[in-house]
């Protein structure tokens, strides 16, 4: 697949505050890319630059051979964008609003009603078409926003936290719509919900304090971050340093970290490579000591754990 979007050394300052700090990555045609990061990480700013709403302080973004400085109008035609919380004109009827968007997007008058009908079916907004946007629930507003973004059947869809503030049913509905769109389009979306990114995205880019801290598929990120699973152990009557020395010479073990040491009980976790099952060896070595094994369980490293580590340590 060819690279459709190339982001090069992108930096954005708001006065003296650096929101995006020299980030570079590429997005292939047909990819679904999830932009993850804590609040204030720079996700929205990055998306706003991609959609030509903001200009970067330095760096460039190109869509095929079009750059955001000289071809913003052409890029806007390629991109459908849904900002966070879908700030649609509250005084308009849903149908009138979609008609307005169809006009702006240059859809021929004779095709407009068909296109609006298609989108109303896809986004399931038929029953609110003649309601004012002001009266809509957040979920419906978000669906209208999705219809807005998809009006011209754009090649690229950029969605800023499309499920934020929705109830679980609405989240599942919107997620299904995104999956449906993602079969044919390049989709870039930001989210706080990690399971959603894991389930929906081909690739995840984690941003923290304006920098990219991880980039790849969920498996790649887990692999890069070292060890796919953790073993949590609780022992009684043991010294952590002795245990650590005993376990450290097992080559498959990456790291042994003390979590708690209280009342003669030590809790620690062992980070292990995904492919090797070292549990029998660990058990054998513990058995050789005088410690009493209270707990021994494995925990696969979720994206959430990795996200927390990445965004904390940076």
């Amino acid at each position, binding site marked *: 697949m060819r690279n459709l979007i190339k982001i090069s050394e992108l930096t954005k300052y708001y006065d003296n505050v650096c929101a995006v700090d020299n980030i570079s990555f590429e997005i292939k045609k047909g990819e679904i890319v999830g932009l993850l990061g804590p609040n204030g990480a720079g996700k929205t700013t990055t998306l706003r630059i991609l959609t030509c709403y903001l200009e970067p302080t330095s760096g460039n973004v190109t869509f095929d051979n079009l750059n955001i400085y000289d071809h913003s109008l052409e890029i806007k035609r390629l*991109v459908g964008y849904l*900002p966070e919380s*879908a700030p649609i004109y509250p005084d308009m009827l849903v149908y009138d609003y979609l008609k307005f968007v169809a006009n702006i997007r240059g859809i021929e008058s004779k095709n407009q009603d068909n296109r609006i009908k298609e989108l109303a079916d896809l986004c399931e907004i038929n029953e609110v078409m003649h309601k004012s946007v002001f009266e809509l629930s957040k979920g419906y507003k978000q669906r209208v926003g999705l219809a807005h973004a998809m009006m011209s059947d754009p090649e690229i869809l950029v969605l800023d936290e499309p499920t934020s503030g929705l109830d679980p049913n609405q989240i599942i509905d919107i997620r299904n719509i995104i999956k449906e769109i993602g079969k044919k389009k390049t989709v870039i979306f930001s989210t706080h919900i990690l399971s959603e990114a894991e389930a929906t995205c081909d690739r995840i880019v984690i941003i923290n304090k304006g920098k990219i801290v991880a980039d790849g598929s969920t498996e790649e990120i887990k692999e890069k971050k070292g060890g796919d699973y953790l073993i949590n152990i609780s022992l009684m009557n043991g010294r952590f340093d002795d245990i650590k020395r005993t376990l450290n010479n097992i080559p498959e073990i990456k790291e042994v970290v003390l979590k708690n040491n209280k009342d003669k009980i030590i809790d620690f976790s062992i980070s292990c490579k995904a492919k090797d099952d070292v549990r029998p060896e660990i058990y054998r070595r513990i058995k050789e000591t005088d410690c009493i094994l209270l707990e021994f369980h494995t925990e696969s490293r979720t994206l959430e754990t990795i996200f927390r580590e990445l965004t904390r340590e940076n």
Partner: protein
Amino acid sequence: MKNFLNIYKREFKSYFVSPIAYIVISIFLIITGWFFFSTFFLFGQAELRNFFSLLPITFSFIIPAITMRLFSEEIHTGSYELLYTMPVTGLDIILGKFFSALFFIIIMLLPTLSYGIFISFLGDIDWGPVLGGYIGAILMGAAYASVGLFASSLTRNQVIAFIIGMAFCVFLTLIDKMLFFLPERLLNIFQYIGADFHFQNISKGVIDSRDIVYFFSVSFIMLFATGIVIQRKK
């Protein structure tokens, strides 16, 4: 330019969706009607001079109220982000909003034509100054609408946008009445800056290119300044 028309249509319609348009038009007609007719029968002359003499100061308050929401509301609600990320240019947005305000002002002026018609039944009215007055009112409306649009682009708060726009319009209206405060060598400059001075020239029925250039210049400068403000927000 097609999108300028789409934005213009949306903005113009949105004036009439909320009651604000009807309230503003009513207030305008009550104020102008009251001040005009309260002295009209005292002078006993079939002319609209008194109506046009009050128009600049009335416009200074009414037009910023019409324009205050144009950018402020969009920036406040975030809908500007949706609008600007569609294939439109800053110029489309500015001109669309500006002309929607200007046509609203023209709609607001239309009922006042009945004053002239009414007076024509009472006496022999000279239609030249009346026509000049309406041309001047439209030109001044355009200039003040551009000032209001500029004020609206500065802030997300509509009340602040109204106050800035009103202050600027009042300044343009009253500056030539305060010339006695100024040193002699500045008199001509400040007289030229005053909108009322140019408007009163036109409303006498004398269409002078200098007055037209003045109103076009104010509109252009203010729209250009709006463009800069919008660009700087990026």
